[in-house]
C-alpha cells in the first residue's frame, strides 16, 4: 500500500557513477516524497551503498542528476554543507567520534553548525539519547559501548541536526545478531514518526514491515520497484525471485533480533 505522496524532496534522474572505468551505477532514477520510507535491497555489489553515498555527495555522480527540492545539488552555487545538514546519514560502521562522549557526539553538530547554545544542545541531545534508549550512557565513550549502542548514538547524532531526510547505509550489517533488533526498533520508530528515509538493508523482515516502497537493485540498475507486499509475495522479475529465494533458503533475517516477517 502506497501512502499518499507528499511533496517531492529528492529527485534522482538517470544517475550514473563510474569508478576507474567501472560503471557501478548505470542509470538510476528515483523520486523520494516527504514522509516516505524506501528500503533499497539487492545483492552485494549492486550499487546500493554507492547510490546512497551519491545522494549525500560522499561520492560525486558522473553528471548533474540529483535534485533536492528542485535544486541541482551538483551545481557550483549549491550549498553542499547546508544540504548535508538536511540529509543525515547513518553508516554501517557507526563512525562515532572516538574522543567524544555519546552526548558530545550528538551535540557537536548542532553547537558548531547550527549555533545552538551548549546548554540547549545538551538538553536536546539528552532527550535524543533517551529516545534511542541510551539515557544512561550520556557520558560513555564510544569504545565502551556495544555496536548496537554505538549505532543508536549515531542515529541520535544524525537526528540532532533535524534532518529532512535520513540515509541509512546498511545500519545493522556490522552488528552482532543479538544487537540488530535494538537498532531496527529505533529505525522503525523513526519510520512511524513520519521521517523520510532511504534505507539500504539486508533485513528483509524489517524492509517488508516499514517500507512504503521497496527498491530492488542489481548490477547498478533498479530492477524492480514496488510496494513491499507485492515485492515479497509476488515479485515481478526473475532476478528478484532468485534473490528472495536465496535469502530465504539461507536463513531469513527475521530469526535474528526478534524480527517477524
Amino acid at each position: 500500500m502506497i501512502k499518499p505522496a507528499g511533496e517531492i524532496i529528492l529527485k534522482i534522474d538517470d544517475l550514473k557513477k563510474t569508478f576507474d572505468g567501472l560503471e557501478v551505477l548505470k542509470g538510476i532514477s528515483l523520486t523520494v516524497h516527504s514522509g516516505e520510507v524506501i528500503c533499497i535491497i539487492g545483492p552485494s555489489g549492486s550499487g546500493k551503498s554507492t547510490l546512497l553515498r551519491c545522494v549525500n555527495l560522499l561520492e560525486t555522480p558522473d553528471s548533474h542528476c540529483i535534485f533536492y527540492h528542485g535544486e541541482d545539488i551538483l551545481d557550483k552555487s549549491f550549498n553542499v554543507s547546508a544540504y548535508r545538514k538536511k540529509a543525515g546519514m547513518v553508516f554501517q560502521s557507526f563512525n562515532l567520534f572516538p574522543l567524544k562522549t555519546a552526548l558530545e557526539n550528538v551535540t557537536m553538530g548542532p553547537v558548531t553548525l547550527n549555533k545552538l547554545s551548549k546548554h540547549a544542545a545538551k538538553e536536546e541531545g539528552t532527550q535524543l539519547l533517551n529516545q534511542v534508549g541510551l539515557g544512561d550512557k550520556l557520558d560513555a565513550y564510544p569504545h565502551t559501548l556495544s555496536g548496537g549502542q554505538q549505532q543508536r548514538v549515531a542515529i541520535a547524532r544524525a537526528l540532532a541536526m533535524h534532518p529532512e531526510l535520513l540515509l541509512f547505509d546498511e545500519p545493522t550489517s556490522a552488528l552482532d545478531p543479538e544487537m540488530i533488533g535494538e537498532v531496527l526498533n529505533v529505525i522503525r520508530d523513526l519510520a512511524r514518526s513520519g521521517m523520510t528515509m532511504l534505507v539500504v538493508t539486508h533485513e528483509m523482515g524489517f524492509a517488508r514491515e516499514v517500507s512504503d516502497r521497496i527498491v530492488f537493485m542489481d548490477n547498478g540498475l533498479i530492477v524492480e520497484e514496488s510496494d513491499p507486499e507485492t515485492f515479497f509475495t509476488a515479485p515481478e522479475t526473475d532476478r528478484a525471485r532468485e534473490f528472495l529465494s536465496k535469502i530465504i533458503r539461507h536463513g531469513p533475517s527475521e530469526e535474528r533480533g526478534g524480527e517477524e516477517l
Partner: protein
Amino acid sequence: MTMRFFFLECLQRFAPSLLKGFWVVVEVTILGFIFSLVLALLLAIGRMSKSRVLRGFLIGFIELIRGTPLLVQLFYIYYVIPLLINWALQTPNAVSFTSVFAGVLGLGINYGCYQSEVIRSAILAVHKGQWEAGMALGFTERQVLFRIILPQAIHNSIPVFGNYLVMMVKDTSLLSCIAVSELLLRTQAYASQTFQTVESYTYLAIAYLIISLPLAQLVKYIEKKIRIA
C-alpha cells in the same frame, strides 16, 4: 702512580654549576619542544594544502632538515644565518643570535620536521569514516580536519611526542658546541680546570639520567592512560 678519585669533593665543588646547567637544559628543552610542536602542526597542515608550490616547498624544507645533522644545523643557525641576514639587510654586525636562542631555534626546527611527519601519518591513519561522518553532518572539509581529524591525530601521536621529548633532553648536549652553558659545556670546563675528569663526567651522566628516566616513565604512564580502543 696510583689514581685517586674525589667524588665527594667534586660533588661539593661542581654541584652549583651542574645545577645551573641542569636548569638550562630544562629551559631549552621546554622552549625547544613547544616550538617544535607548533612548527610540526603548521608543517603537517601546510602539507595538506591545495597549493602544490607550498607543498613542494615544505617537503623540500623537511627533507633538507632531515637530511643534515642537527649539529650542523646548530652551527649554521648560530654562525651562518646572522651573517646572511646582515648581508641581506646590508647591516654588518647588526644581527646576531644568542647561543640559547640559536639552540632553541635549532632544536625546534629539527624536531618540528620529524614530528610533522608523525602528525601527518597520524592524520592519514585516522579512519576514512571519520571524514565521512563529519562531512555527512554538514561540516566543511576544513572543519572536519580541525575539529575531528586533527584532535584524533594529535591524541594518537602523544606517545611518539613523548619519546621525542626524551630524545631532545639528550640532544641539548649538542648545544655545548654553540656555547650554551648547559651540562656538558660546564662539565668540560670543570674537568679541564680540576682534572677530576672521571668524577665530573660521571656526575654529568647521572644528571641526564635524573631528567630522562623519570620523563620516560611519565611518557609510558601517559601512553597507558590515553590508549583508547
